[in-house]
């Protein structure tokens, strides 16, 4: 089923349950205005969304019910039991249609004329003795279908306490341990009667574990939902213009991890806003857009979650960091000179390290990135930092999906076993074996190191570090576990490596918390209790700091930088030129080779039949057509948007490369953005929008071209409707800000939000649309002269008059997308003319 429909069903079923209660309450106290408003709003929302989703039966019934309620609200009708009965009957009809919708994904066929007639009768205020037979006819099919429908719609979601889920997770953890124990015994015993059932038990346990984990998953958007407000406030406090760009909100992770990530993320965003981004004046001077952008991005990658927090600000000031490092005595000048930029940057994760010149209310008090790092490391994650002066910084956080059960490598040192989380293990290197094929551990002044490919890897003997060899246990040092710590690598020397095992992480007892080398403990399959090593803690205890792992770090940083390392670009040639041109690959819908004889020339230019439609073809270069006509086919880049397509004729498609798009020279001619160095060659970059405009004058919904994006504010209390409206308007080329209430909208105004037009719902709790319009018009604020379009489900002339009186420029039916777009276009054009 369509996601939208599923969401609509859930929301509407909740609303219907509320409605039943509220209507019964209204029957007892017909004068209760609050209840009446609630009922009206709920029915109104149902109707509005039905209209938007194209569900005519539901819409008609809801519309008729809304008319009745509207008259009751306007005190033109009294909420007699007969009126209430008529409305309740219509709700039953709505439920009936919904259950059909839930079962088939589309509205069932049926005739609602009787139900609607009864409502109209009720609305007219006639004594409604005819409701009784209507009820009877409406009830008949209901009886038959109700039970199935109830089940289908009622069982979609269920609320469960978090403690119940936690308890389940603990139990599953115990089950996994017991399973491991059984498997271990079974392996020792060889094949017997228990082997097959044990296998089955094992599979079921794994499935159960995954299932329970799923119940604990929450979208990371939940940890981000406070950030837009935070950023807005920060922008006000600092006088900067900041845009928050969030991607991958739906990425799910364990709620425990989510809770622990909330504070570090907030801090990093705060940090970016305060330190990273410059003031509008500075940005203007640097030739950047006045408004800085903070970009949050989350995605899954190989059992981990990657979260990026990036800004396009000034980047880290390496000179300031070096100066601070020197003044704090963290490193000598010589050491600093030898460090890579990545290592210098890493100093900001040290305790008490802040390069902010002034201590502001927001950050710069020396509690900062070190806390962020330790919080992230506490949940077994890592944080990396890349930064380019003047271009921005990017923090990349890698955290495990869940804390409760992790995959770990079991190793042995001096007879004791330890677990190392798989997330930090990069590779295993065998050393000191016979035959000379294995690598050997070398000593520099007593410090063991390993030559690993082109690097010197600092080593730590686990036995020595944990003082296990004091009572005579002999270390055999056969294997180096290469682990990722901070921005570098560390080799942990162990005696033996066993298997990897799914372990259930249990926190260490409070009296052991000071031993930072352990991140927890666990019970193995054989029932033994072992400690889980924290490689970061090991590195710290061993005094391996960034000064020692410098050589190791450079190669890792290359890997880390990959995420912002540019985009896929399509290279092609036009005309007889040898220099290729480039276009970002993700803008191109398809690459086609059309047979030459399929290209026709009509009055406007070249067209071809493409997927049963005529598609305009544009030549990038006047010579292109002739040049290309040498071959039998014509290569074309196809761009599409919704129903429309256009083709750009080129002479040759050269390659797809992955590179940074850094336009260094401005464009000398229309159709090109400028010149960039791509794959080592000066390349002209295509201005896609120019060519789209060539094909379709109104490609961007308005004839204004992409640079004049109009800014809209949508004020709408229904989450659902807002979610429908905002993307629809954004797709039509508007820059949309959404507010969930009139009060929030007014706060945005007072916060200095600049707009071109406002679209507002009329029926909202607390402050309705009419009051909002009066406030906008009357307060003489920044928005007083903006076009305001009212959205309503009710198109009665009296309502429209009331709306215009309050200050609305136009009145639109809520669910008529095209009418709204037309109205917006008209209002905005008028405004330009004024």
């Amino acid at each position, binding site marked *: 089923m369509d996601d939208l429909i599923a969401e609509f069903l859930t929301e509407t079923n909740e609303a219907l349950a509320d409605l039943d209660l509220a209507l019964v309450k209204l029957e007892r106290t017909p004068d209760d205005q609050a209840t009446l408003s609630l009922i009206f709003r709920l029915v109104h929302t149902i109707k509005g969304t039905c209209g938007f989703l194209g569900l005519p039966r539901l819409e008609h019934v809801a519309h008729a019910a809304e008319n009745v309620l509207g008259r009751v609200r306007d005190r033109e009708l009294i909420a007699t039991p007969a009126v209430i009965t008529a409305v309740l009957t219509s709700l039953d009809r709505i439920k009936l249609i919904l259950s059909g919708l839930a079962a088939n994904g589309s509205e069932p066929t049926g005739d609602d004329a009787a139900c609607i007639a009864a409502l109209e009768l009720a609305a007219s205020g006639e004594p409604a003795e005819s409701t009784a037979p209507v009820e009877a006819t409406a009830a008949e099919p209901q009886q038959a279908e109700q039970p199935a429908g109830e089940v289908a719609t009622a069982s979609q979601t269920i609320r469960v306490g978090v403690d119940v889920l936690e308890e389940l997770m603990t139990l599953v953890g115990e089950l996994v341990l017991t399973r491991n124990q059984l498997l271990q015994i079974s392996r020792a015993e060889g094949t017997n009667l228990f082997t097959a059932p044990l296998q089955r038990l094992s599979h079921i346990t794994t499935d159960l574990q995954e299932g329970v984990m799923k119940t604990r998953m929450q979208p990371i958007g939940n940890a981000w939902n406070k950030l837009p407000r935070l950023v807005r406030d920060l922008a006000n406090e600092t006088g900067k213009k900041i845009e928050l760009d969030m991607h991958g909100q739906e990425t799910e992770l364990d709620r425990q991890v989510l809770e622990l990530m909330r504070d570090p993320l907030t801090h990093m965003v705060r940090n970016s806003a305060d330190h990273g981004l410059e003031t509008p004046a500075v940005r203007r001077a640097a030739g950047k857009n006045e408004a800085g952008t903070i970009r949050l991005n989350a995605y899954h990658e190989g059992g981990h979650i990657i979260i990026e927090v990036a800004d396009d600000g000034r980047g880290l000031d390496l000179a300031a960091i070096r100066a601070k490092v020197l003044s704090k005595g963290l490193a000598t000048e010589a050491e600093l000179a030898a460090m890579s930029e990545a290592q210098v940057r890493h100093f900001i994760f040290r305790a008490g390290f802040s390069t902010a010149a002034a201590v502001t209310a927001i950050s710069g008090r020396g509690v900062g990135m070190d806390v962020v790092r330790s919080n992230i490391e506490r949940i077994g994650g890592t944080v990396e930092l890349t930064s380019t002066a003047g271009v921005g910084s990017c923090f990349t956080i890698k955290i495990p999906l869940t804390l409760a059960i992790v995959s770990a490598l079991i190793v042995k040192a001096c007879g*004791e076993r330890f677990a190392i989380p798989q997330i930090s293990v990069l590779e295993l290197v065998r050393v000191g074996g016979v035959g000379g094929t294995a690598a050997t551990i070398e000593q520099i002044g007593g410090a063991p190191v390993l030559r690993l490919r082109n690097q010197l890897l600092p080593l730590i003997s686990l036995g020595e570090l944990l003082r296990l060899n004091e009572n005579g246990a002999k270390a055999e040092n056969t294997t180096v576990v290469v682990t990722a710590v901070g921005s570098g690598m560390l080799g942990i020397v162990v005696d033996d490596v066993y298997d990897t095992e799914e372990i259930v992480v*249990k926190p260490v007892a409070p*009296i*052991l918390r000071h*031993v930072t080398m352990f991140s927890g*403990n666990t*019970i193995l399959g054989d029932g033994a*209790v072992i*400690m889980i090593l924290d490689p970061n803690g090991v590195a710290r205890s061993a005094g391996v700091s960034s000064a020692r792992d410098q050589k190791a770090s450079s190669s890792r940083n290359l890997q880390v930088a990959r995420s912002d390392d540019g985009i896929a670009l399509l290279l092609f040639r036009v005309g007889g030129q040898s220099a290729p041109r480039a276009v970002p690959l993700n803008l191109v819908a398809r690459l086609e080779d059309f047979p030459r004889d399929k290209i026709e020339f009509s009055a406007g230019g070249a067209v071809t039949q493409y997927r049963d439609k005529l598609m305009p073809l544009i030549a990038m270069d006047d010579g292109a057509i002739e040049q290309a006509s040498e071959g039998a086919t014509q290569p074309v880049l196809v761009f599409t948007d919704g129903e429309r397509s256009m083709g750009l004729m080129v002479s040759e498609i050269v390659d797809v490369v992955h590179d940074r798009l850094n336009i260094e020279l401005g464009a000398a001619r229309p159709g090109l953005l400028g010149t960039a160095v791509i794959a080592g060659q000066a390349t002209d970059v295509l201005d896609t929008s120019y060519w789209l405009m060539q094909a379709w004058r109104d490609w961007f919904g308005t004839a204004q071209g992409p640079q004049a994006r109009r800014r809209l504010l949508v004020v709408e209390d229904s989450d659902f409707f807002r979610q429908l409206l905002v993307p629809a308007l954004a797709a039509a080329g508007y820059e949309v800000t959404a507010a969930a209430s009139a009060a929030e909208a007014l706060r945005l105004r007072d916060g200095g939000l600049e707009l071109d037009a406002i679209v507002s719902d009329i029926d909202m709790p607390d402050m309705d649309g009419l009051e909002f319009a009066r406030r906008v018009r009357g307060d003489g604020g920044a928005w007083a002269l903006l076009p305001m379009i009212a959205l309503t489900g009710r198109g009665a002339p009296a309502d429209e008059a009331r709306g215009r009186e309050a200050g609305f420029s136009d009145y639109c039916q809520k669910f008529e997308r095209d009418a709204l777009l037309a109205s917006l276009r008209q209002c905005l054009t008028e405004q330009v003319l004024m």
Partner: protein
Amino acid sequence: MTNDIAVAAVARPGAAQNDESAFVILTLADQLCGVPVLAVRDVLADQAIARIPLAPREVAGNLNLRGRIVTAIDLRERLRLPPRADGAPFMSIVTEQGTELYALLVDQVSEVLTLRRAAMEANPPTLPRIWAEHSHGIYRLEQRLMVVLDVERLLQIDIAAAA
């Protein structure tokens, strides 16, 4: 395998009146001690204890109690008594603090006694400090003296001093 002693069964039925308390009686280097029976979850014998590197010396290690990890505290170390001879048998008394389980390692657990609360006497002033700090008081039993241990204080290990 584990020689659990069901504490409840040992206690005399209906023994603990309002003015009486029940104690699990144990020995530590020949000294008779008692722990309030209500603080005891389990009594175990012959448990495999996994040692924890770098832990304070009082912490003997971890043990696995039916899938839960229990931190074992050696009361001989805790009360600065001479260490047990290698291979000498020991028993553990499992107690819960907050959500954590701890096992107190002792030489021997013998019985459960119900004693009148009023009969408990204050620590004599000459009691060594380490004992006085971890004791609620003293009972004069027929043959010997019994020290009532303060479990909560015993579990408060000073990390700085221990390390």
